[in-house]
């Protein structure tokens, strides 16, 4: 009798357990896959709490963000807790396939939740996600309540502050360009390095020596190289007018082609197309230090009277500038690489610091439209200065986190 009672009780419990498991799986409740019923010690792992899956915002699609409340065993630091499996399926009842794993512990800044990014979701397909906590061979799973579909977004709202800043700056520049076109006089401060261009070319002419123009080690996709070539246009024109000789050793083939076009046009504009030769612009090597060695050799042997370094430079800047300095050449440098500026300042006679390199074209051409763009740039600078002062006061007073207005989320 006693034996029958025990068997009936066991059967009832087993059926009740199976029914509960079925209900739990279909309703998104946790499912516990425990050890065999005859095991003396009850083994189980706490499932993750609520699992939320959503289309990753502000992205180009193919991504779903899965966030879940950490398992109680993870939170309590149960020994042997092995992290989480992330599973994906197209039906809440499965089948699910494992698409990734996540370690134990919470997100940075939010220890309650853990986040995983599924970057291989197909756009337009409805997925259900399950998160499984692991403890040895045990696993316990929670499934999302509703399906999620990834899609591409038409605007990245994380960049809204960047958009406002860009629109403001572009509007300011366009406004001042239009003002300049209507004949309004614009003041531009003297830039010593650019004022010295005429003197430097004149000096080389008087000494009967060459002028070297080094456009840096970056290619045409770097705006500094382009800014450098705008200065080359002016230097080459002066060289043509003074009948001096210019050499432009380059480290990129595309820069060579562009620089040739620039120099050729400058000689044409100066009325001396016959003095131009393709050999004025020549290629040395793409290799950074090979290029530096090549130029150093040329400088030491040919002893140019003037050397221009205009463009993007890296560790070779000081090697070049110190060699030029050692032969007594007048050197005018310009770069927007903050780390190389001190080297140029120490070794060259004049240095265009950062924005001065970009202002050179407008400064040298005196074209109103170009000068107008500088004025717009200055307005941008004024706004940034005002923001710095206001931001400093707000931050110090602790009113709100002013700096967050300028940060790019996810960037």
């Amino acid at each position: 009798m006693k034996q029958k009672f025990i068997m009936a009780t066991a059967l009832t419990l087993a059926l009740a357990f199976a029914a509960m498991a079925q209900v739990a799986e279909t309703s998104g409740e946790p499912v516990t896959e425990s050890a065999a019923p005859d095991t003396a010690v009850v083994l189980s792992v706490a499932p993750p709490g609520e699992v939320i899956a959503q289309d990753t915002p502000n992205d180009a699609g193919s991504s779903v963000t899965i966030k879940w409340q950490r398992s109680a065993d993870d939170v309590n630091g149960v020994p042997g807790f092995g992290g989480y499996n992330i599973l994906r399926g197209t039906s809440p009842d499965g089948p699910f396939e494992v698409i990734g794993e996540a370690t134990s512990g919470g997100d940075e800044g939010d220890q309650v939740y853990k986040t995983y990014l599924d970057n291989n979701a197909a756009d337009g397909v409805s997925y259900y996600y399950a998160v499984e906590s692991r403890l040895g061979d045990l696993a316990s799973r929670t499934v999302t309540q509703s399906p999620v579909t990834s899609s591409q977004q038409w605007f990245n709202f994380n960049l809204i502050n960047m958009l406002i800043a860009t629109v403001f700056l572009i509007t300011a520049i366009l406004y001042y360009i239009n003002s300049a076109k209507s004949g309004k006089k614009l003041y531009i401060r003297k830039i010593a390095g650019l004022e010295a261009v005429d003197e430097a070319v004149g000096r080389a002419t008087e000494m009967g020596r060459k002028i070297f123009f080094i456009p840096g080690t970056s290619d045409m996709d770097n705006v500094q190289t382009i800014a450098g070539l705008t200065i080359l246009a002016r230097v080459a024109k002066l060289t043509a007018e003074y009948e001096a000789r210019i050499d432009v050793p380059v480290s990129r083939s595309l820069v060579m082609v562009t620089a040739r076009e620039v120099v050729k046009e400058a000689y044409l504009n100066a009325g001396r197309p016959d003095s131009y030769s393709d050999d004025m612009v020549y290629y040395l090597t793409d290799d950074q230090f090979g290029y530096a060695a090549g130029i150093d050799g040329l400088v030491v042997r040919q002893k140019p009277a003037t050397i221009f370094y205009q463009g993007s430079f890296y560790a070779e800047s000081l090697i070049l500038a110190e060699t030029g300095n050692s032969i007594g050449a007048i050197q005018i440098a310009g770069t927007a690489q903050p780390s190389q500026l001190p080297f140029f300042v120490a070794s060259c006679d004049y240095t265009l610091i950062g924005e001065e390199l970009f202002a050179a074209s407008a400064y040298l051409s005196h074209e109103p439209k170009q000068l107008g763009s500088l004025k717009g740039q200055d307005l941008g600078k004024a706004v940034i200065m005002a923001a710095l002062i206001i931001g400093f006061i707000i931050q110090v007073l602790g009113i709100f986190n002013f700096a967050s207005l300028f940060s790019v989320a996810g960037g």
Partner: protein
Amino acid sequence: MKREIPLLIAGIVGTVLVIQYFIPHVPFGTLNDVFSDWFTVIQATAIWLGVLNLVKVAGDKVYKRQKDWQYSLIIIVCFLGITIIGFFFSGGRRFLDSGTAFTWLYDNVYNPLVSMMFALLAFFVASASYRAFRARNKEATILLVAAFLVMLGRVPLGDVLTNWLPNWLHMSNVASWIMNVPNMAGQRAIMIGIALGTVSTSLRMILGIERSYLGGE
């Protein structure tokens, strides 16, 4: 037309690249990569222009026995030597595989030469510092003092000498403060100027106001 078409291409590509920054949706989201790939293809193709130019200029010098023609001869010999070895003496393997003659030359000739050039920087830094740190005027004197404190703070001796002072006056802390506060403020000011200058220059190119890089005025 020779100038209008490049200006148009620059304008369109520039505008599209600005727009794509804010729009992740296809086709905008992938355009940056597409243009980068195109640039890489053009860049790789154009390398031949440079190589041919190098051989032509050096060859001319040697042929005409111009001044210092011996250096040009070294360029030609090295260029042809490394090319022939890479193509024909790799023993049936890829020329970049380990154990090939090309790799041996790369590891034992090219790399030491590059390291030697880089090592020259140490001497050039010393000579440039000597000039820059001379106390000729007020600014140079401030630079000299700041540099002295930073250099002292970067070696153990700095802290040994200032151990008896309050913690914030320990030389390593003084050096860190100089680097993180006045130096960083100056660097950021320069970087803000650079960012604005880049936007302004890019806009001038997109609008076709800036044409010097195409050989125009």
